């Protein structure tokens, strides 16, 4: 497992990060999608501490009536944190689009939903003069378990350097309700989907492999020697390699001496 974090100190750092980034951007509100799951709950709790609950807007964006418990958990959490929240059913948009594409796979439908949620979040961020807070954790980012331009899209991401198992530690520290903490993690793209079922590994094992490969810069052999199945390690390595495109801006074909993305280099916080 990745080493235990000092959750109190991590909270301090991330609260400052959110406050500082919102302040520098002149943003009044931090917005995020509330799924009823762990990651968005932790992010909402951090944001509420950073800028005050009245300056956080949680958007609960279910597709139809298929996930009543998640909607209830998300609304309950928002009330508990005292943040503003709004529930919008995205089924009309999604159904209108797929009415003419009845054979679309559930992956296509799920990705479309993730991008619809992104579009709704960004629309509200424009209306609010706010910034969209990302909730992708390090585990998801490393294996690319997310929809590019969907749930992976955000203005700032407070959670992206915490493995899923570390997010759980932080959640316990932040007193996220047990109902949310004990739930099986899911992308919620279709009923019955679970992360661990789809990835084929428990988060504990996945994080341990990732920690060995990424943090400790161990090779395949060493990670296998540490007690992991070669097939599991290979699978994780393949997932990391295959998802680099989700962690980067697209390559720009270089023609001039100074090109965007190659040698026109500026801080993200430029002019803030």
């Amino acid at each position, binding site marked *: 497992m990745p080493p235990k974090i000092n959750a109190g100190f991590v909270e301090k750092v991330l609260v*400052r990060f959110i406050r500082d980034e919102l302040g520098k951007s002149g943003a009044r509100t931090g917005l995020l999608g509330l799924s009823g799951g762990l990651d968005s709950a932790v992010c909402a709790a951090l944001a509420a501490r950073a800028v005050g609950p009245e300056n956080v807007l949680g958007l609960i964006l279910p597709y139809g009536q298929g996930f009543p418990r998640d909607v209830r958990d998300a609304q309950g959490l928002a009330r508990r944190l005292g943040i503003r929240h709004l529930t919008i059913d995205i089924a009309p948009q999604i159904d209108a689009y797929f009415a003419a594409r009845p054979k679309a796979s559930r992956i296509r439908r799920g990705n479309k939903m993730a991008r619809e949620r992104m579009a709704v979040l960004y629309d509200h961020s424009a209306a609010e003069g706010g910034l969209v807070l990302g909730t992708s954790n390090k585990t998801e980012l490393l294996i690319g378990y997310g929809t590019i331009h969907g749930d992976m899209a955000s203005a700032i991401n407070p959670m992206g350097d915490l493995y899923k198992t570390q997010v759980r530690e932080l959640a316990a520290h932040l007193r996220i309700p047990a109902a949310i903490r004990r739930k099986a993690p899911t992308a919620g793209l279709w009923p019955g989907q679970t992360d661990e079922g789809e990835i084929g590994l428990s988060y504990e094992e996945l994080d341990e492999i990732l920690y060995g490969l990424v943090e400790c810069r161990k090779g395949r052999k060493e990670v296998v020697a540490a007690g992991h199945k070669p097939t599991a390690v290979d699978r994780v390595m393949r997932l990391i390699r295959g998802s680099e495109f989700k962690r980067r801006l697209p390559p720009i074909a270089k023609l001039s001496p100074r090109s965007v993305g190659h040698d026109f280099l500026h*801080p993200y*916080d430029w002019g803030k």
Partner: protein
Amino acid sequence: MNVALAQIAPKLGDVEANIEIHLDLLARARKKKAGLVVFPELGLTGYTLKDLVEDVALDPARDPRFRKIVAATKGLSAAVGFVEESPAEKGLFYNAAAFIADGRLVHVHRKVFLPTNGMFEEAKFFAQGREIRTFEAPFGRVGLLICRDFLHYGASYVHFASGADVIVCISAAPGRGVQGGDAFATTRMWELMGEAMSYFSTAFVVYANRVGIEDGVTFAGGSFVFAPGGRRVARAVDLDPDLLVCRIDLSAVREARRAWLFKRDEKPEAIWRSLERIVRASED
């Protein structure tokens, strides 16, 4: 003498705003009777500059904005971090530290060791400094270093060998590692190395780090002062701005050097000959 650790969060790329921050803290430190005020690395510019380096570069001898800071040091000393472009070396930009005393620019140190790996890309944007030398300040002999310079222990050795009473390190050290206590793991590293260096050098070690966040990177703060022989004089807060003023007694250098004879018994010529042999061999 009172030493002020000016643990600030500079505004990235905005020299004018940072000059104001420096002037404000100089005034506040003066009220607290500080004899030396130490600001962090690139305090006048912010750290994550990339292509902004040339926009914020200045010549400390002539720049009217910098002269305002120099003028504000009447009766005290200050170490200030900035990007230097001198008329003698047009188009070369240095990560630099100026030592100013009593309205006069005394010394400029150019960062010798530019971290360029992983999250660091200084050598991509800065020219490499080539000299480490001490100089005479109103209160004693001082050696300046900038952040990573301090982690190369030969740099502090040069200051020790040339008789520094005070080693001043200005820093923009990002925090990393959140497993341990109530600070970043790297903060502990800096403290340990500062403490150790105060033993090795029988000198004061003054370390001013910055705070604030740039592009997701949190600068850790935790500035400190160690007296010769590992006595912690002061430690600023983690993560947040601070202006910590502490009293140091410079006679502690003499006492330490009488008790621990590292300075008396030091043989720079033996080190020099050995280094020369190593450098020659590596050049063959």
